[in-house]
């Protein structure tokens, strides 16, 4: 049996909360679009826009039951804030995207 821990799905901490079901599902379904917008912002050199998007995800992901996703977004936000090399930002965004791909409602 092949073990691939990084491809394990990540579920929301609020998966069992009926109040949250709808907005968690919406959050997860919109996530690929959100990550794509961040990648586009980086490609077109719009670092301000990338930072805004990362900052929003950092602030909200935990609220939807995905604190680790929020931490991954915080690393991108912090990288830009501290003026890190673009390659560092790119690699952090790559990690964020990889983690986001595992997120399930």
């Amino acid at each position, binding site marked *: 049996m092949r073990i691939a821990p990084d491809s394990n799905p990540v579920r929301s901490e609020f998966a069992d909360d009926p109040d949250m079901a709808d907005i968690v599902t919406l*959050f997860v379904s919109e996530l690929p679009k959100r990550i794509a917008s961040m990648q586009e912002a980086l490609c077109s050199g719009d670092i301000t826009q990338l930072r805004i998007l990362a*900052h*929003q995800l950092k*602030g909200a992901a935990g609220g939807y039951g995905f604190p680790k996703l929020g931490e991954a977004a915080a690393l991108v*936000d912090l990288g830009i804030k501290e003026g890190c090399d673009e390659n560092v930002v790119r690699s952090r965004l790559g990690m964020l995207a990889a983690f986001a791909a595992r997120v399930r409602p």
Partner: protein
Amino acid sequence: MTASQGPLPRLLAIDDSELIHRLLRVRLQHEPLEIHGSMDAREGLELARRMVPDVILLDIEMRGMDGFQVLQALKDDVNLQDIPVIFISATASMEDRVRAIDHGAIDFVAKPFEVVELKARVRSALRIHQMVKMLAQKAQVDGLTGLWNRTYFDRRLHQEVSEAVRHGRSVSLVMCDVDGFKRLNDECGHPFGDAVLERVARILQGGRSSDIACRYGGEEFGIILPNTMGTEAVDVAERYRVAIEAETWPGPAGRVITASFGVSDLSLLAGSQGSDDLVASADSALYRAKMNGRNRIEVAPVARPAG
């Protein structure tokens, strides 16, 4: 009246992330709150001016105008400066937290927020707001009669006079003074005098809902009648006069207590049209009512047309 019986307190969230708005709507849905939101700082400020919420949740990092600028604008607006503002921000820096509190925010919640904590902080902010409103109102109410006090009367009359002048409307003032009050106090004691003032206040309060009854001082009352011509004001005063005269009192049977009234209509005044002139003219009409035998109404003289 307890808080739960009145209209729901209104919360306004200003945050540029739709994710946060959705989350707040769901997380606060079972709280006794009416939730409003704006994704734009300027638009949020406009909304705050229009709806005057009971508590504001404010993001710090927003495009165009940040949370600190919004807070400053709120504090600069006399109608909004007392609304408690809770900052919600993903920026955890100690400097920002201190700066937020120093600039007048009541609290600070870090994103991602713990739901129970957020709810508790919102409740706490609402309690404080409620208390501030109550104290502000108490400072304007007369302790004995429960009517508006002199401070409120002066401010409100000034405001009503400016409004009337601006919109070309009328405003009238009725001044009322209990007849022979000093003698009543001397003969029946101060507790009886107080009871008379309370009862007269109750009568003056029972008029039209738009009339503003205030205790002017001692046994003198001022009733502001927005949008009311002098003739109509005389009718109002007459109803008060009759009601006071008809009131029954403890003590010797058949005791009658009366009051005198002076009425003035702003639009009929000569010269300057300030609230001071309105008070002075109503007061001199009241003085004439006293001189002409009490338990009566006198009207301030109508100015002759200029020319």
